[in-house]
């Protein structure tokens, strides 16, 4: 091979590595981009007047008088639409029997969509479900709903070899020969959405601390947040003492021998057990055998999660304890301190930042794990728990509810913003913890080297 070829190959090889790194970075950006951008949309968005009405009626937030004024304006802007529908209804008699049935059906559909967009029409009884009592609270959802008012989705299955094709047919075609075709209902709706819903930029930070209303149609994610906190702290309460003591034993007391190396193999095996197996084990052992609670509970979930992060805590603490210079121990021992005394007063305090780093990383791990809590702790819908209830009650938790809302919820598309918001909060939480760990580690290495 010629030398120039070898050089070219060398360059190509280097760029291959750089491309791999770049791809990794790109994957991270592609992954976090939508989550951050659309997730922050759960907190900051253009809220309509319906959102403010909701806040006042459900959470007693905002100024009632101001809202009344605004609502009056919005109602005034909506009035022409309802009048135009009434005009069409009054005109029904002039139609032939078959056509009248058709138009009545189309009108019913139109009113339904209008209710989804603007809330219940004036004069109609208050619907039972909270989700039906309000119009669109978010402007971007309102714009989508407006499309539903103007167009009807139709699926074309005429070509059997292909998948059905979606086409949009103008809704106005359903009302041929009625006043709705000519009285400008649809153009009015299209051009006056602004005045009817009055969007404003809203910073809804209470998303984090509000309980959810009507299966996450409205409100925030407090029960999930609280559940995740309980589970994470419970897991740490269990794993931290065990992990640190084990690390102390392994570094300070244990000699070399088949038992100790067996122990080490067991710890690394525990780290390799798939998380779903932990979940089954938690169900079979903590709940069905030990009976720590009669069915799913935060306690059972915490114990399972604690077991899951135990190897991480042990490893991190072990590393931290090993990093404490030998001179510290020798100095303490030469002053006459016993071994246990040395460990407690000299070694552990010196290793504390490192142990904390491990703790923080394991917390992130425990907060994000879903599989172990499916059978041991998580429920889809629930109230925020009081501290005393954690021993017997299951809880909603962020990771589980993300899964649940985006696969099993009855209106998956309507509450995308809540799903993104939850993912954003969970990822944010985990990354915050990891950043803290990275900073902590940087400070330690500075301290040890400086």
């Amino acid at each position, binding site marked *: 091979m010629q030398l120039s070829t070898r050089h*070219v190959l060398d360059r190509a*090889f280097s760029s291959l590595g750089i491309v791999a*790194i770049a791809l990794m970075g790109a994957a991270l950006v592609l992954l976090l981009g939508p989550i951050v951008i659309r997730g922050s949309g759960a907190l900051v968005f253009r809220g309509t007047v319906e959102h403010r009405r909701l806040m006042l009626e459900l959470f007693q937030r905002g100024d009632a008088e101001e809202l009344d004024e605004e609502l009056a304006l919005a109602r005034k802007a909506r009035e022409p639409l309802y009048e135009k529908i009434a005009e069409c209804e009054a005109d029904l008699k002039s139609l032939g029997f078959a056509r009248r049935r058709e138009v009545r059906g189309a009108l019913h559909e139109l009113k339904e969509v209008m209710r989804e967009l603007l809330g219940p029409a004036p004069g109609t009884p208050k619907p039972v479900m909270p989700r039906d009592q309000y119009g669109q609270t978010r402007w971007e959802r309102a714009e989508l709903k407006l499309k539903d008012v103007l167009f009807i989705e139709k699926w074309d299955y005429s070509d059997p070899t292909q998948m059905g094709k979606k086409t949009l047919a103008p809704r106005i075609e359903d009302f041929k020969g009625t006043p709705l075709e000519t009285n400008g209902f649809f153009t009015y709706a299209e051009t006056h959405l602004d005045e009817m819903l009055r969007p404003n930029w809203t910073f809804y930070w209470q998303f984090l601390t509000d309980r959810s209303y009507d299966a996450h149609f409205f409100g925030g994610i407090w029960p999930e947040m609280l559940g995740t906190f309980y589970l994470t702290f419970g897991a740490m309460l269990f794993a931290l003492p065990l992990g640190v003591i084990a690390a102390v034993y392994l570094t300070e007391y244990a000699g070399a021998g088949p038992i100790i190396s067996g122990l080490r193999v067991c710890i690394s095996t525990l780290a390799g057990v798939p998380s*779903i197996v932990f*979940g*089954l084990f938690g169900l079979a052992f903590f709940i069905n055998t030990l009976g720590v609670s009669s069915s799913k509970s935060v306690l059972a979930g915490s114990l399972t999660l604690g077991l899951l992060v*135990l190897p991480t805590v042990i490893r991190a603490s072990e590393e931290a304890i090993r990093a404490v210079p030998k001179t510290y121990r020798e100095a303490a021992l030469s002053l006459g301190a016993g071994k246990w005394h040395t460990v407690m007063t000299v070694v552990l305090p010196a290793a504390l930042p490192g142990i904390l780093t491990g703790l923080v990383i394991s917390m992130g791990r425990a907060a994000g794990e879903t599989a172990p809590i499916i059978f041991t702790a998580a429920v889809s819908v629930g109230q925020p728990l009081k501290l005393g209830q954690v021993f017997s009650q299951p809880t909603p938790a962020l990771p589980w509810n993300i*899964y649940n809302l985006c696969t099993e919820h009855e209106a998956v598309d309507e509450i995308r913003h809540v799903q993104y918001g939850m993912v954003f909060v969970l*990822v944010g939480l985990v990354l915050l913890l*990891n950043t803290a760990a990275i900073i902590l580690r940087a400070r330690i290495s500075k301290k040890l080297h400086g």
Partner: protein
Amino acid sequence: MQRLGKLLGESLLFLITATAAIAVFLIIFFIAKDAWPFFRTPGMIGEFFGSTKWYPSREPAEFGALSIFVGTGLVTLGAVIVAVPLGVAAAVCLSDLLPFSVRQLVKPVIEILAAIPSVAYGFFALVVFAPQMQENGGGMLAVGGWIVGLPIGLLAAFVLSDLSSTRAPEKARIPVRTILFLLLTALAAWGLFLLSARLSAITVSSGTNALNVSIILGIMALPTVVSVSEDALQAAGRELRQGSYALGATRAETICLVIIPAAASGICAAVILGVMRAIGETMVVWMASGNAAQIPTPWYNLLEPVRTLTATIAGDMGEADHSIGSLRYTVLFAMAFCLLIFSLLCNVASEYVVRRARKKLGG
């Protein structure tokens, strides 16, 4: 008295430390205990491993999990194909090519990739990636084909033209080489055009399929592969590199022909750990694999939905835990048992490989 106290204290410490070990045995025992009734049922083992008919809720129920095993293997294989080349290339880059300051920037990226919860990956796979794939799957495949194929084609053309031009007489070497290079490049481009035309004609009927899951699982396994193989590459030592450079090898030759073979067992351990990560992952496959208990036709068709062991356990336990002890319940423990045994074997294998590597490099 004091010695007795010391002994007591130490044994207490030992007992607490042994919790982790006890936990491992408890896990194996309790999973096996609930899986045992399933395996004991006459004819079940044959059906479980040999049949593809998975109808746990039908009367009479059928528990043929072969397609589920194949699905698990398929997505794991896909994840390995994504993660290993990328991961090893990135590890080489980190250990040998990048200056220290850039490395400090890349490390957090890997850490963040490792820290993101699996449910967030699953959400991304289901809500962002799957619709994209369904809509322009063919186009994505074609672009992927170009990205992978173009550099390989160019390099192959370059090397081939170089190798074959050495036979030509001295004077004609450069023109022969140029012509050959152009010819081969044209050939490669033509092949790629044909390939991309075929790929872009593919319609992806569902975005939740094995390919989607494989890519996401590959990204999730990347951090493990990168960090373990980077450790292995670093452990290969400076003398080895310097020796190779002294013999006149370029950096690429040194890495490919000397360092990577020396670090092979460490890289092997990295692959095993990556496999473990992919095979034990639940949320991503549950959300985005389509959960269809079928063997794709042909078996390597990654564009069809599959079902994996972990997703089956997670998905079916909700209905099965009302009937503790029934076959429907125990079959899930049987699956968990298989997963557990597999991960134990992987763990032992990776320990063994790492230990052997340490011995080899140390002595």
